[in-house]
């Protein structure tokens, strides 16, 4: 039996009133793949992410995760099945420490979150896992800092750490390099390239260079429709894509 | 239960609902534009009643009493918004808590000025008495309340729908940021709506003084009614306030008549139902 796709979208559409934000999207991402989702502003990329993550319900179509139909599942249940996302606009826990932020991510899918009488410090394994996630993004020295005192770049790194701490199977990265300086963006790219190859990645990225460096496979959205889908070389050479990015 | 009972109770419920409409419509509109729930709204109702009382004691003029009551409290509302609420622009929770502080101050001031005895607003002769229809007798005052509330409701609706000012208010309710961007002076609109809300509440209090009376504690007693109306009807919606107030008026009346010991409980059920099925109310927006 063929191994199921990590993430599969069949005929997924979303309309708001008369507007089709996402139009009959077909997507098949294999386990361990690095896929970039690109397209001009308003192409529907973030909406598509929100549909996959479960923030918005689909108007039509099916979404499966490793063969399981998640189309009707609530956000938190999809996360329990291994689907994690980061946010384009940083969405952290501002008055908590960096370590507590990641701890929340680490304990999210464990029964520890209901534990009411044991002090936090007792959960040594969870804490170790949290610190590992911090180390993976290079923030281990900032563990005790309150998040609102972090720089923007560090906050973007923390976004990734939160996603990693939950041991995801499929990771949706929404513009991880948003607002980063050129140097920070280089660091972010390196970070993304270092990620565990077992994790399936789907990245929205405005910066085409970053997207094409991290991903071997690219899907291009335009007005909610998939207009190109293939290896980065093929997509780079696709005349319609070139027209949209260079011509329009 | 005879047919008479149903007719009379329905009539009473509708008249109470009319009164509630005056109170709740202001609350709903204020929320619509400012996203603030004014917890001093019951206080406006109460103070409107007290001021009307003082004016009618001095001048014996019912219309003047209502006018003065409404305008005076509208001014209080303007002061509250301009001098205090505006300082916390954007912090809705802070603003709401501030209105709580004002509610306490108003309650105590009212006690200080008018004392602890309950009063009833003396009605002009042309509003006293009943209208008979067969064996049934309908108090003229209640009819007056329903007519007045209908006229005001219709005026509000037309104003919101047809006038430029109304369009500005609707725009601000829909999307304050956008409205500001198109050149609508949202802070001024907010102030205007706040004053209007206070005016309507105070008018309600003055009118209510004629059949509910005016007494300490009325402010906090009537506030939950306004809340249930807007929870059921939907915050920010004028049609919601209309439908909600009629529903609440009827339910409360029938509840009191059939289950006197259960008080607010009879409002509990529909509120619970609405919250379960449509958390933003019948006509509400998130």
């Amino acid at each position, binding site marked *: 039996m063929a191994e199921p796709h990590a993430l599969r979208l069949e005929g997924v559409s979303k309309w708001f009133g008369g507007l089709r934000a996402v139009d009959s999207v077909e997507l098949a991402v294999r386990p361990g793949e690095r896929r970039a989702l690109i397209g001009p502003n308003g192409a529907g990329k973030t909406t598509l992410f929100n549909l996959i993550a479960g923030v918005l319900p689909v108007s039509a179509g099916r979404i499966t995760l490793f063969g399981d139909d998640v189309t009707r599942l609530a956000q938190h249940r999809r996360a329990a099945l291994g689907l994690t996302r980061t946010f384009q606009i940083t*969405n952290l826990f501002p008055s908590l420490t960096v370590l507590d932020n990641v701890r*929340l991510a680490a304990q999210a899918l464990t029964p520890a979150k209901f534990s009411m009488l044991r002090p*936090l410090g007792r959960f040594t394994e969870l804490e170790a896992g949290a610190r590992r996630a911090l180390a993976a993004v290079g923030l281990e020295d900032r563990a005790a800092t309150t998040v609102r005192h972090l720089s923007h770049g560090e906050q973007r790194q923390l976004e990734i750490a939160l996603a990693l701490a939950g041991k995801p199977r499929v990771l949706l990265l929404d513009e991880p390099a948003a607002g980063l300086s050129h140097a920070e963006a280089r660091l972010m790219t390196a970070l993304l390239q270092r990620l565990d190859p077992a994790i399936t990645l789907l990245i929205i990225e405005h910066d085409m260079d970053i997207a094409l460096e991290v991903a071997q496979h690219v899907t291009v959205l335009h007005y909610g429709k998939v207009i190109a889908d293939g290896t980065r070389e093929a997509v780079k050479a696709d005349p319609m894509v070139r027209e949209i990015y260079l011509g329009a | 239960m005879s047919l008479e009972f149903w007719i009379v109770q329905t009539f009473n419920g509708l008249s109470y609902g009319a009164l509630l409409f005056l109170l709740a419509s202001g609350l709903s509109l204020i929320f619509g534009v400012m996203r603030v729930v004014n917890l001093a709204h019951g206080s406006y109702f109460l103070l409107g009643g007290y001021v009307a009382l003082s004016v009618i004691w001095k001048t014996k003029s019912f219309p003047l009493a209502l006018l003065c009551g409404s305008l005076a409290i509208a001014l209080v509302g303007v002061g509250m918004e301009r001098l205090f609420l505006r300082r916390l622009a954007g912090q809705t929770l802070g603003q709401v808590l501030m209105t709580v502080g004002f509610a306490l101050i108003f*309650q*105590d001031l009212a006690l200080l000025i008018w004392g602890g005895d309950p009063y009833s607003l003396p009605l002009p002769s042309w509003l006293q008495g009943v209208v008979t229809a067969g064996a049934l007798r309908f108090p003229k005052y209640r009819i007056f309340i329903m007519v007045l509330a209908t006229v005001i409701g219709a005026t509000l609706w037309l104003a919101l729908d047809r006038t430029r000012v109304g369009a500005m208010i609707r725009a601000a309710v829909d999307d304050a940021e956008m409205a500001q961007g198109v050149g609508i002076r949202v802070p001024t609109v907010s102030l205007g709506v706040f004053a209007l809300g206070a005016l309507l509440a105070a008018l309600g209090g003055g009118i209510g003084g004629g059949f509910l009376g005016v007494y300490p504690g009325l402010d906090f007693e009537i506030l939950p009614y306004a809340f249930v109306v807007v*929870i059921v009807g939907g915050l920010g919606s004028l049609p919601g306030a209309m439908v909600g107030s009629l529903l609440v008026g009827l339910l409360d009346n029938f509840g009191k008549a059939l289950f006197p010991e259960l008080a607010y409980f009879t409002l509990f059920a529909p509120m619970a139902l609405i919250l379960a099925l449509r958390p933003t109310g019948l006509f509400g927006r998130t």
Partner: protein
Amino acid sequence: MRERRGIVIGLVAVVVAAGVAPLLSAYPLTLLTQAAIVAVLAMSLDVLLGYTGLPSLGHAAYFGVAAYAVGILTTDHQRGFLVCLLVGLGLATLTAAVFGLLAIRATGTYFLMITLALGMVVWGLAFRWVSMTKGDNGIAGVPRPDLGGPWNLTAPLPFFYFVLAGALLAWALLGLLVRSSFGLTLMGIRESESRMRALGYNVWLHKYLAFILSGFFAGFAGVFWAYYNGFVSPVDVQLVTSVETLLMVALGGPGTLAGPALGAALIVFLKNFVSVYTKRWLLILGAVYIGVILFAPRGVLGAFRRER
């Protein structure tokens, strides 16, 4: 660490209170007793407001339900302390469980309105259900608990220690709660519900649990209150009581536990002090409210906090 600071202040306050108590005359001692009970109420609200970020204006409901349970059981049915405690706690928790189902779906202002309305429902029942609650007259003559043994709780000093022990127990349990992973979860919800959902938390469930726990501890305070006051009336469940409780949390510093306890003591002493000179307590309370919101939004404890 800011948590340690809160614990230290609290412990010092408790030790001082316990030590000073035998030296006090009856009136200040009763005030201290009142402060201890109300501190538990304020801390229970802090779990909901300070830690989970849910502003409730109907907290007096659970406090009052428990107090009425004690009132009715002691005067009409001559029940002992244990029964009253269990029934009071049980009813308060049940009320919170039912009300929570209605309120938790809402957030922010909506939540505030719904909890206020629900609190008024309980007040309305206390006021009108005269056959059960004796309405406006209230239930008088609630006796002090008879625990057997050498303790005579009718005297103020033993009763104070009894209350202090209860308050300490509540504080300890609440302290464990907010420092646990569940407590961290609540804080996460306060900071960003959307993130919590994305991480895999069933946010509704955690909020609901917080609501119920909060109601439980409010009920705990309510039980002691009935015994302390000897009298239960609709005043205990009125809106002003919920408003005062919220102010205690806001004044003391939400999200610190010790802060709201301190705020409670402050308000209790202020209220009783002011009442000696003037009847205008509500006016002053309202002014304090507005002052706190305008000038010290993080509360008294927050003013002394330094963030890293």
